């Protein structure tokens, strides 16, 4: 007879790993079921940006807490994710962008993000690598980046130390609720647990379906690119007013170019094809912001899947109508805010009052289902 865990987490990205970690540290026996390897999807292939200037206004208070978590990852996670805390600039090159920037920076500042609007001269003092043509910049001292591809290794070590049972290369295929206990069918042995967290990124739509709950999740296919190593050409995180650029140079010399330009892909095949025109467009923005990038060569480009709910706000909270089942995902710019939101959910699962409200999914159910 297999053991019954206090908690089964399905999905080993940032959300699932963080819930599993804090639940285990809170005294629960935890099993984590992951189809592939830990943090190999969105949590490991994203641009690693830890910024307020691309974060949704409603998430700013969470992102500020999460940024502090990332900055102290060595303490609470115990392992290095290559976090660099630095200044961030969001640039406007046109009048329209300057207006967009002023409005958006204002809203984010109201929500608590310490963003100042500065002119080109002041921006250049922050980032000497800037190209010409900057009209206005949002400057935030709380910014930075991590080495996203090291996330899986760092969490893996922390989870093992916390005593979490990690089942990698094991896909959950169905869930039944039998006598107050969840039975999770997997491609390996079935798993039993008193509580369940669904943290499967873009795949939570079908996972919630196992529990009879319908929440449509949109799939964004975000394209990224990285240069070869080159001399230091920038020292901040750079974005643009529209949010369609993220740019930072890692200490080893490569520069990651992101911003959410869309590639071809879906849930079944992942991000399977990058569109050359969009890659060139994205890289043009990057080279316009930091001209010295033109000296580097493009080494690799890829795409990662990001989940988005109908209102583009997170799905973090209990699953309506299914006691002891929870969902954790669809956090916009989830790499920045994910650890804090997932820790809040772990608090709730441990029976404590979370320090900030969760984002329950009742609002996302269709009216018919809500009535039922």
């Amino acid at each position, binding site marked *: 007879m297999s053991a019954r865990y206090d908690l089964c987490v399905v999905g080993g990205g940032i959300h699932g790993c963080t819930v599993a970690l804090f639940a285990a540290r809170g005294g629960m026996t935890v099993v984590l079921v992951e189809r592939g390897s830990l943090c190999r999807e969105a949590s490991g292939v994203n641009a690693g940006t830890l910024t307020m200037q691309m974060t949704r206004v409603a998430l700013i208070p969470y992102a500020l807490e999460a940024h502090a978590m990332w900055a102290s990852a060595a303490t609470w996670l115990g392992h290095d994710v290559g976090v660099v805390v630095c200044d961030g600039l969001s640039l406007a090159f046109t009048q329209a962008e300057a207006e967009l920037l002023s409005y958006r920076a204002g809203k984010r500042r109201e929500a608590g993000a310490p963003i100042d609007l500065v002119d080109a001269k002041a921006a250049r003092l922050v980032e000497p690598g800037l190209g010409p043509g900057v009209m206005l910049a949002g400057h935030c001292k709380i910014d930075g980046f991590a080495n996203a591809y090291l996330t899986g290794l760092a969490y893996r070590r922390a989870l093992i130390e916390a005593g979490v049972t990690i089942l990698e290369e094991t896909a959950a295929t169905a869930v039944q609720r039998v006598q107050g206990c969840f039975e999770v069918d997997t491609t390996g042995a079935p798993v039993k647990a008193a509580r369940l967290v669904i943290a499967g990124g873009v795949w939570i739509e079908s996972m919630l379906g196992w529990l009879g709950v319908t929440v449509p999740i949109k799939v964004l296919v975000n394209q990224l690119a990285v240069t070869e190593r080159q001399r230091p050409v920038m020292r901040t995180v750079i974005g643009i007013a529209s949010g369609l650029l993220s740019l930072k140079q890692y200490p080893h010399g490569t520069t990651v170019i992101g911003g959410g330009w869309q590639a071809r892909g879906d849930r079944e095949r992942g991000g399977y094809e990058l569109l050359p025109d969009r890659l060139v467009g994205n890289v043009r923005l*990057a080279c316009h912001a930091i001209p010295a990038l033109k000296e580097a060569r493009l080494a690799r480009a890829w795409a990662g899947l990001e989940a988005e709910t109908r209102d583009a706000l997170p799905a973090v909270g209990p699953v309506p109508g299914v006691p002891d089942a929870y969902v954790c995902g669809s956090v916009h710019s989830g790499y920045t805010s994910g650890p804090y939101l997932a820790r809040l959910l772990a608090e709730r699962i441990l029976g404590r009052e979370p320090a900030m409200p969760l984002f329950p999914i009742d609002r996302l159910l269709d009216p018919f289902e809500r009535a039922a």
Partner: protein
Amino acid sequence: MTFPQRFDLIVLGAGPAGGRAALTAAAAGLTVILIDEQSAAGGQVWRKPRAERVPARTDGQHGEGLRAALDASDVTLALGRRVWSVTEGFRVDSLGPEGSMSCVADHLIVATGAHERVIPFPGWTMPGVMGLAAATILLKSESRLPGKRVVVAGRGPLMAQVAAGILAKGGRVVAVVDQMRLTGWLGALPALATQPRLLAQGGGWMGRVLASRTPWLFNHRVVEARGADRVSEIVVTSASGDRRALSCDALVIGDGLVPGTEVPRLLSARMWFDRLHGGWIPELTADFETSVPGLFCVGDGAGIRGALQAGTSGELAALAVARQLGRKTEPARLARLRRAFARASCFSDAVAAMLSGQTADVARIGPDTIVCRCEDVSRSEIDAAMAEGIRDINQIKHVTRCGMGPCQGRMCGDTVQELVALGSRRSREEVGAWTGRPPLRPVPLGDLVGSFDYGDIPVPEPAPL
């Protein structure tokens, strides 16, 4: 960016396979563009010598023939262009001296050849150490010697060709260090004898080397290259463990060839692991069509078979494209080509067996030896990741940076996959390969973006606030 030009067929790679494919399709009345990174057609095997140098003999004549035929044909030649993106449809984006170019076609023949396998050993990244194929480029294209006193090592007939080439240009070969036994060569003779002309060519190279009294050390391998700032000495060992040092100023070494399958992987064609023919190759029909309709792979990129079958595969694929586009092809011609291809397999499989990856070679790599030379990742770092329980080949890349450098994993990929298979006691099929990603080769960002106005960048709608 210019509007994409449309063709019936795009051919990538202007070696024996791609060149013949393009000529065949054009002769059948198709509009064809042939794209290659080199400034002249011929590929590696029929590489064009620099104009002011003495042209090479036998192979060069094939190359001259191909180049003349292409010049006289209706094939649109796009040479000196680096292809960086291939997407469904098919759309091919390349960069060249005149900037970026896009072209589209419903049919794509990929003839991108192979790259070298060098199994790492201490000192292999030192100046003065180069691959056998790299040495043939020096000899053929530049008419230059790799060094004054050269050790030639590894596996297969390319060693004989390179050693003979060095001698012919007045160079000195210190020794040929051959991993194969003499009996291995003798055992292959009946199969090699099915292609008398090629056997005579190979025998001629070997004869010239032996006649020069160059020591040919059968059943020996290189265990280390030493030197201060470039190689000055190598250590070789016999199978029985007798070591000796050879003084030299260059080491030319190759452990076979790996098919260049970047394009079919990028287009998500189904692949399979064929150790004999070099490793991962696309699943192919008898017409060399992959699981992606309209995508064909020919030549060494479809499995290491050499120039003889490369041309035949290119012609067969081009005829299949012509048929799919409603052109008539003679059944007798198809039958003749298929027979020729099958007949040549006896020879090419015997050579492929010499050039295929050997698990034992990889197992011997020492813990401190650099495996990924771009990112300086040693075997012990890969083993340490596996010891932590990491099994996924892409995750190994993430935690070690192995394969993330400018060669995009071409040099180390086969070796790392073999190491992961060994370390996790899984088959190469189970371990798989790194996900194919653009660009196909690194491209300068400055060339990629060209000149542009900021206002013309098609920036998508902003994300929600």
